[in-house]
């Protein structure tokens, strides 16, 4: 890329510019849009986060069951630790690492931002997501093989997550 201004022009302008900040991007208030992480005490409404994380654990388990993968097999395919998948599936208070969420999103071809919200890694005020996630988690049962209804519920939730990121 060729710069359309010269070094001298930039020096003159920088010298005469007012001494102000120039930062642009996303503010803290919009963290959910960029996947920013806040200190945990600033994450409001911890109850909702736990519920979302519970739904995240159920969601990952159902996707894994749909694909008939063991925890170890999923860990290997997604290049994450099996221990972390177990914690995600079983412990709603567990906060997965961002990399793990991204790897799982990539493996299951899911929108990373949606999974970041669902995992509690990013803060969300998305009430529709919270409602759909709770409904999905409540309807899912841990049978060895996905029932037809569970598969429909899973597919419905996948569609919701994909659509919510468009």
């Amino acid at each position: 890329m060729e710069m359309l201004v010269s070094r001298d022009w930039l020096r003159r302008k920088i010298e005469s510019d007012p001494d102000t900040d120039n930062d642009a991007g996303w503010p803290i208030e919009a963290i959910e849009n960029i996947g920013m992480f806040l200190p945990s005490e600033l994450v409001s409404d911890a109850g909702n986060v736990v519920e979302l994380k519970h739904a995240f654990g159920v969601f990952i388990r159902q996707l894994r069951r749909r694909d008939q993968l063991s925890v170890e097999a999923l860990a290997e395919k997604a290049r994450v630790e099996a221990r972390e998948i177990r914690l995600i599936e079983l412990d709603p208070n567990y906060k997965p690492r961002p990399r793990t969420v991204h790897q799982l999103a990539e493996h299951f071809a899911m929108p990373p931002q949606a999974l970041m919200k669902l995992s509690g890694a990013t803060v969300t005020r998305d009430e529709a997501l919270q409602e759909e996630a709770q409904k999905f988690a409540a309807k899912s049962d841990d049978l060895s093989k996905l029932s037809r209804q569970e598969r429909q519920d899973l597919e419905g939730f996948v569609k919701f997550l994909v659509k919510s990121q468009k």
Partner: protein
Amino acid sequence: MSGSLIGTFDLLDRRTGKFVEAQLVSPAGSSNVADIDGSWRPLMQARIEQLRSEDRLTIGALGESELQDAHWRWSEKIEMSSNRLDRQSFAIVTEGATQGLMLVTTAGFAKESSQHGKPLVMIDLLATAPWNRRGFDAAPRFKGVGRIMMAAAISLSVQEEFRGRVGLHALPQAEAWYRDRVGMADLGIDDTRMRYFELTEDQARAFLAQ
């Protein structure tokens, strides 16, 4: 590893009043990520710890201290930029340290009425090193990162045949700069809860002709 050298420019050292040679590179690379992880982040984290110890850790305080990007996953953002054709990253380096970073996408569309729907370069993030931020450091070091990055964004826009169109969301402390100095159209606060600015073709020409 760093990207290709776009050009050698200068930043004004506020401490000495003298210009210091700086390199603009694109894309940003692993050395810039290492700088952020090794230099930027510890400073920002220390400030967060300070606010925490003083029981003043609030979202508002983070904003006032310009810690809005303290928790950004920079390495992933930069890696994403390097893997996608519609993303580009720029870094300004001087004295062996990354002084500023800019992440842009070339898949944005204009909202300003005279150019609505036309493609533009969207600045997703423009950040200076913590020691260059007035809200972070009482005696900020280098001045000029924003001017160089803006010139780079306009140059990229022209190269992409977007005629200089650029869009961005300004942080509150930077709104006056983009409106009054760069001359961008102020389209008000949008659904991101930030003020959105857009540079039209005419405004880009005016910026370059200043």
